């Protein structure tokens, strides 16, 4: 058994203490007077975006429940899931050595990243949202790999959820470095070396016809909270089915030397019946951001497309027999 055990960081009283201390701690200031968010941060967490069904009514873990829960989740992720069913096994090709999904729940102890709606679930799609989602699914079903555009943005090395925005925890490389210069907050996202340079001078957004993968962000400080408004998304970004009219509001509040509470509100009336909000705690890391040159080594894309062509040839041959 090649079970690789992972030393589980057991969270005890420390967790409870830091949530309580949130209110009183005031962040230091950068040279030009901004609350200091600088440093390398990770938003890896095992807390899922939406609350799992069996925890429907439970918005928070009690501090005592956290350790056991975390232990089980991490061990479960590490079990060598050699599967009888081959395709599932191929699908789980890595074991934990390659993943870095994190080993802790969010410091707020919530059972989901989503905080509003209260049930921790993404609100219902509008009719148009349903239609659009169905169309995308159908396109993917009919054309899994006709050309590179049919693969996901991560497989095309164009955009990862870690960059978003919103910046979502992901399978690995959940690392960010924040720099603050006069009039700017810059966030370097490790995957895929995207840098969000957020001007704080209240300038207008780019013209509405200019659409960008990471949208166009404007920031301002409300007390110790950095508020970032982002618009101008493309219709190709589709964060969980969002449209190009997505209006995203992100809030960064440093609650203690090692924690930034990152909260985002998704407002896209063309897709969801009402806005929804999620929170992720970003934890200070003493690691650094490494280069994630994705496109340069993307043998996978060729492999996938050639694989599809090979399968078509085989099925054609089989059919012809």
């Amino acid at each position, binding site marked *: 058994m090649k079970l690789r055990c992972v030393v589980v960081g057991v969270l005890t009283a420390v967790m409870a203490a830091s949530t309580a201390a949130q209110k009183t701690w005031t962040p230091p200031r950068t040279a030009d007077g901004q609350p200091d968010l600088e440093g390398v941060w990770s938003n890896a967490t095992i807390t899922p975006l939406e609350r799992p069904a069996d925890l429907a009514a439970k918005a928070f873990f009690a501090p005592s429940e956290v350790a056991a829960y975390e232990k089980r989740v991490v061990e479960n992720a590490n079990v060598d899931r050699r599967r009888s069913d081959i395709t599932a096994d191929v699908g789980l090709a890595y074991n934990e050595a390659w993943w870095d999904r994190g080993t802790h729940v969010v410091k707020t102890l919530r059972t989901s990243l989503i905080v509003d709606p209260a049930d921790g679930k993404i609100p219902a799609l509008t009719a148009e949202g349903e239609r659009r989602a169905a169309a995308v699914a159908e396109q993917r079903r009919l054309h899994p790999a006709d050309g590179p555009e049919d693969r996901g943005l991560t497989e095309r090395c164009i955009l990862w959820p870690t960059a978003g925005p919103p910046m979502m925890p992901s399978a690995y490389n959940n690392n960010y470095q924040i720099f603050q210069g006069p009039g700017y907050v810059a966030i370097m996202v490790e995957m895929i070396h995207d840098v969000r340079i957020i001007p704080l001078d209240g300038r207008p957004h780019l013209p509405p016809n200019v659409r960008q993968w990471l949208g166009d962000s404007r920031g301002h400080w409300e007390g110790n909270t950095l508020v970032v408004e982002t618009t101008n998304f493309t219709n190709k970004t589709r964060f969980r089915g969002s449209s190009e009219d997505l209006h995203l509001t992100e809030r960064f509040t440093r609650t203690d030397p090692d924690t930034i509470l990152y909260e985002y509100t998704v407002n896209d009336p063309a897709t969801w019946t009402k806005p929804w909000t999620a929170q992720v705690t970003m934890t200070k890391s003493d690691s650094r951001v490494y280069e994630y040159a994705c496109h340069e*080594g993307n043998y996978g894309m060729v492999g996938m497309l050639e694989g599809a062509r090979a399968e078509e040839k085989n099925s054609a041959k089989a059919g012809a027999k």
Partner: protein
Amino acid sequence: MRSITKIGLAMGVALLAAAPVWAHHAFAAEFDGKTPVKLQGTVTKMEWINPHAWIHIDVKDKDGKVTNWMVECGTPNTLLRRGVNKNSVTPGMEIVVDGYQAKDGSNKANGRDVTFADGRKVFLGNTGTGGPGDAPEK
């Protein structure tokens, strides 16, 4: 196994389902579950690149003919944080790869398990690099 509570089970299932979605790409799209391979060979080159690291190995078959295989691994950045570096895997090392061949029939496979001949895992922070991260595993 029995002691896993309902929560753990639920979480486990959710996690399981989530796994492939989060991978850089669904391996099933590139590799073929119906053609498993077991390759024993000598490393000729280690490409520490994203999105996936690739090991190039020379594999000798029964009558000595050598073919070069490319083995796809995970994203290296995770391991860099555990102290792995370009000296962790160097040309000349003997390794064993359990995985699946590429669908297009080329000499490519995914590194389901990559171990030394003695069964020790290759990709751990502790392969002689004294890096932080997971406890040494026997």
